[in-house]
């Protein structure tokens, strides 16, 4: 039986956050709430990426200071790959939000409500 160490506490917190968001998307009935939850789910995963790319000690951001030796830089800077994934995902999250907002506004125009319980034109 493995027991989590304090160094793994960030993973655990992020896992709880992601689970709450997945619950909200699946079982909340308000479309706007679902959209917010999807947005926060992306945030949670972003945190997961950044946590995995962090380095303890006197670390520096992944921008090489003038005059520093590359091998020294590689041994003290944090992981740029994780940062790259997050930059991309934030932009994509915005595109998702734009799409869903447009659709939700139109749903409200047609049905006068955004509760999935009350929108029952189609049987699914």
């Amino acid at each position, binding site marked *: 039986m493995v027991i989590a160490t304090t160094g793994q506490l960030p993973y655990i917190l992020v896992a709880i956050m992601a689970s709450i968001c997945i619950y909200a998307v699946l079982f909340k*009935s308000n479309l706007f709430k679902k959209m917010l939850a999807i947005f926060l789910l992306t945030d*949670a995963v972003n945190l997961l990426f950044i946590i995995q790319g962090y380095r303890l000690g006197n670390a520096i951001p992944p921008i090489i200071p003038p005059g520093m030796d590359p091998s020294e830089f590689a041994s003290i800077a944090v992981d740029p790959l994780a940062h790259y994934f997050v930059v991309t995902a934030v932009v994509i999250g915005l595109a998702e939000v734009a799409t869903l907002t447009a659709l939700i506004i139109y749903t409200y125009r047609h049905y006068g409500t955004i509760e999935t319980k009350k929108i029952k034109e189609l049987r699914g």
Partner: protein
Amino acid sequence: MIEMIELVIDLLLAFCVVLTAAIVYTKDLLLAIVLAGAEGVLVATVFYLLLAPDIALVQVAAGVGISTAFFIVGLRKIGRREE
């Protein structure tokens, strides 16, 4: 041995979890949006503390500023309360 930064990050993340639960629980959508904005700021702080200035910039500009504006513009066209 826990370093100071770990403790701070754990605290911030725990606060994020609480905020997420509150966003899911509350019935007032405007409050949910404000809380989501606050959570965005917290996330940006974590990014900054974890030495990711690029992403902190993106998060503040897009994840907090523009997305919150988007949510509010959207909310003005639909009902504010969840049933």
